[in-house]
């Protein structure tokens, strides 16, 4: 499978610089998610790959093939649009067949391929229905079928599930994963929803507000080892402490003003200089919360419970520390009748191990 490579791509609309010197390699045959907040330029990036927009400078390759100046209708890339963009004057069959019809493929082959493709997206029973009579999820499937029938090198999906309700979205995500592993086509999935991205992606790229790619990696890599506080906060949620790195008795600690010293583990991935200022990212679910004092933890803080949000499978506590800092903690609701009930204004102890902290430069 051929990789998609973007090399030093620049794109601006008037004075509005969207992408600046962006380089990215999307592994061929993978399910790749492009995750970023609204306005991060991820849709522009997608439109550049599709060919709706042209780069101001830079190059785009598929394998060794430079497609930078190939017009959209000559690129073997298809898009599933956010609002499907199905042709309202055509029925399901005509919509799905469109790409083949405009290429002048024989009628018999088209018929055969449409049926086969509709089967893949479980729409074979709706083949001659007008588009307006389909539900949102079915329209989504038609959009998918219309794209994959052309056997593209790359399938681009621009927030394809944004208009669907939660349950349907979860089901479509699973279907998308199945479809991708069956077709082995490179899927590039643009979303601002970290849950979707984490679910579907083999690899993902995180874009920030400046249109820069902060980090590329597997979902697990990105969640467990974020490269910056932006990534840590955008993918999942986290508590960030600012402190100074120190060496003590052969180990490392971070001194956070007003809160004290915390033991940290220095990962092999990234080295920090002693005495440098850095950020400590601590995920809420990696903290133990308890009313009684515990043994065997490297780090400890105390505070009072300020807010409790019950999510069903977990509960989120907001704990206010003595210096006014607020720490968010998730606790699994494992027990039907918890032996210890934490309530508002309770004094609680927070514990974590030194491996649970990720050190960040910014």
């Amino acid at each position, binding site marked *: 499978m051929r990789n998609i490579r973007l090399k030093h791509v620049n794109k601006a609309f008037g004075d509005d610089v969207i992408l600046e010197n962006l380089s990215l390699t999307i592994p061929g045959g993978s399910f790749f998610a492009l995750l970023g907040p609204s306005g991060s330029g991820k849709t522009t990036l997608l439109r550049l790959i599709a*060919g709706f927009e042209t780069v101001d400078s830079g190059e785009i390759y598929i394998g060794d093939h430079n497609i930078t100046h190939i017009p*959209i*209708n000559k690129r073997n890339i298809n898009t599933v649009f956010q609002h499907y963009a*199905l042709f309202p004057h055509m029925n399901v069959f005509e919509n799905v067949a469109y790409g083949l019809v405009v290429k002048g493929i024989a009628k018999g082959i088209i018929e055969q391929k449409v049926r086969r493709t509709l089967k893949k997206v479980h729409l074979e029973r709706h083949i001659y229905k007008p588009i307006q009579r389909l539900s949102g999820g079915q329209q989504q499937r038609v959009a998918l079928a219309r794209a994959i029938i052309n056997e593209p090198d790359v399938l681009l999906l621009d927030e394809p599930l944004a208009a669907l309700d939660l349950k349907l979205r979860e089901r479509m995500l699973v279907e998308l994963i199945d479809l991708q592993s069956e077709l082995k086509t490179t899927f590039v999935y643009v979303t601002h929803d970290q849950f979707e991205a984490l679910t579907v992606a083999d690899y993902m790229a995180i874009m920030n507000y400046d249109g820069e790619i902060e980090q590329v990696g597997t979902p697990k890599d990105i969640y467990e080892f974020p490269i910056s506080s932006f990534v840590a906060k955008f993918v999942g949620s986290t508590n960030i402490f600012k402190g100074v790195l120190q060496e003590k008795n052969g180990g490392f600690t971070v001194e956070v003003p007003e809160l004290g010293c915390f033991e940290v583990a220095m990962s092999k991935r990234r080295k920090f200089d002693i005495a440098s200022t850095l950020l400590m990212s601590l995920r809420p679910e990696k903290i133990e919360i308890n009313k009684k004092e515990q043994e065997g933890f490297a780090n400890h803080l105390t505070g009072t419970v300020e807010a409790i949000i019950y999510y069903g499978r977990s509960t989120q506590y907001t704990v206010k520390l003595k210096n006014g800092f607020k720490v968010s903690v998730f606790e699994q609701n494992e027990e039907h009748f918890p032996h210890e009930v934490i309530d508002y204004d309770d004094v609680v102890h927070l514990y974590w191990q030194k491996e649970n902290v990720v050190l960040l430069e910014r």
Partner: protein
Amino acid sequence: MNRDINNTEVSKNVSFFMALPAFVWLLIFLYIPLGVIVALSFIRKSVVSIWPDFTWAHYLTFFDSLYYSVIVRSLTLSIITTAVCLLCAYPIAYFLALHAQKWKNVLLYLLALPFGVNFVILSYAWFFLLEKNGFINNILTSLGIISSPLQLLNTQFAIYVGMIYCYLPFMVLPIYAVLEKLDIRLIDASLDLGATRFTTFWRVVFPQSIPGVSTGFFMVFIPSFGEYVIPTLMGGGKFMYVGSLISHYFSVLRNLPLGSAFTVASSMVLLIVALFFYWRFRRMVS
């Protein structure tokens, strides 16, 4: 549940009363006069009897070549006017709807501006352009394209120019209205699926604009068939069209039955042709 039912009943009554004035208006000023004309067309012109005498005779005169040729001439005028308007209006509407952007409103205003001026006045503006010593002849002579001025005014050419000029906005606006609502992402989708711009136009844009084309077609075709003012002014009264012939019957010859019969007969021709086109458009949509 009960309240809902009551509400719909109330709203039915209300809408009935709201439609009533318009209906009465149409009844008095359209259907009754129309009935009178149909009735008149069967009456033998007679000064002797009080009770009218019915006859088909007026209708038989239409197989006369004069009336026949007037209807054909009018039909030709309205079909060519409609066709030329369509060919000119579509690109204008397309540009306005999809590419004019911030100039859209200014251009639309300019397009609708002639509506604010009576056509009699507008046609005098055309006189200045088309006269022997008018703008067009002057330019053509000074460029050396022609040696002596052309006779432009009071010709069929002038009539066609006037008709197309006058009816163009009626074609542009309905087409503009549908194209303006067209989801341009569908154009993106079509290109994305490998279609050329040309194919995209014929397979995606045009089919969706057919309702607007159809509306524009009838808004130009039907009134231009009976158009009276433009052929009279621009043609200098030298060419007889359906409108001018009807007016000739009623106001010059004072032959009301024959005029009525001609009105009914030409309306029938128009109705049949219009229904044919309506049927064609319906088939294009489905």
